[in-house]
């Protein structure tokens, strides 16, 4: 069982959408905490799940992998998953991994919550 790192994940409910907002660096130690928060959020069967990454200062591959897993749950449960508010640094990691085309990515929380996203 992976030990959990010192990461804060804020979870809110906005208009039927679950907004999961991790803060700080999401690496090997922190990813399990994010993973659990995402799983619990899916379990509550929201209309959509928004991962608000505005507070993420650094994302290493365990964080990416956790989001890939969330994408699978999203497909399986037919719950739209939208990522939003990626900093330049975080976006670069998605691009290097060529994952920016696989996810639905919105500019900010506002547009992530809008039905078009």
């Amino acid at each position, binding site marked *: 069982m992976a030990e959990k790192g010192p990461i804060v994940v804020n979870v809110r409910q906005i208009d039927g959408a679950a907004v999961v907002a991790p803060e700080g660096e999401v690496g090997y130690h922190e990813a399990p905490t994010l993973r659990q928060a995402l799983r619990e959020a899916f379990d509550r069967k929201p209309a959509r799940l928004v991962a608000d990454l505005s507070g993420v200062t650094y994302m290493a591959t365990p964080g990416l*992998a956790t989001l*890939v897993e969330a994408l699978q749950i999203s497909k399986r449960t037919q719950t739209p998953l939208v990522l939003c508010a990626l900093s330049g640094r975080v976006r670069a990691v998605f691009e290097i991994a060529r994952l920016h085309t696989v996810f639905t990515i919105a500019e900010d929380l506002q547009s992530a919550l809008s039905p078009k996203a």
Partner: protein
Amino acid sequence: MNAPPDIAVELSSNPAYLCGVRELVNLISRRVGFPDGQASKIALAVDEALANVMNHGYLRRTDGRIWLRIYRIDAQGAFSGFRIIIEDEGRQVDPSQIKSRDLADIRPGGLGVHIIREVMDTVLYEKRESTGMRLTMVKLLGSDARATGSCCTDSSGGGCRG
């Protein structure tokens, strides 16, 4: 190759040090002349490679040793890139086992090696003679293509193409 590295870091296999080493690599890459975007990518790749040594080489033990060495490559007197070598004394694996996953297959895992190959011009995993692994990466200034060169030979002479 026998000249001393321009900068070398020896660290224990403790993830607490990843962030500091990443920033060191990032800032040094900028200072020697890599554009900011390339410098962050180099730092990301080194971060992933070090995390892999901690997780797969040392199976998350924090008392293993890791050596990171950075050599400037100069061509015609001008800075033209970095050779970065990471060595450990951890578990040896067949270099052919270290593969990036097929991106079409969306699932967690295998992203680190994928990123390392995307960022670097050459990526070579080898078993060290004694114990542990050696990863040699070359990043040339201005190159932004994924690693294509030879890959994955081990010291015993076996080889493969990733």
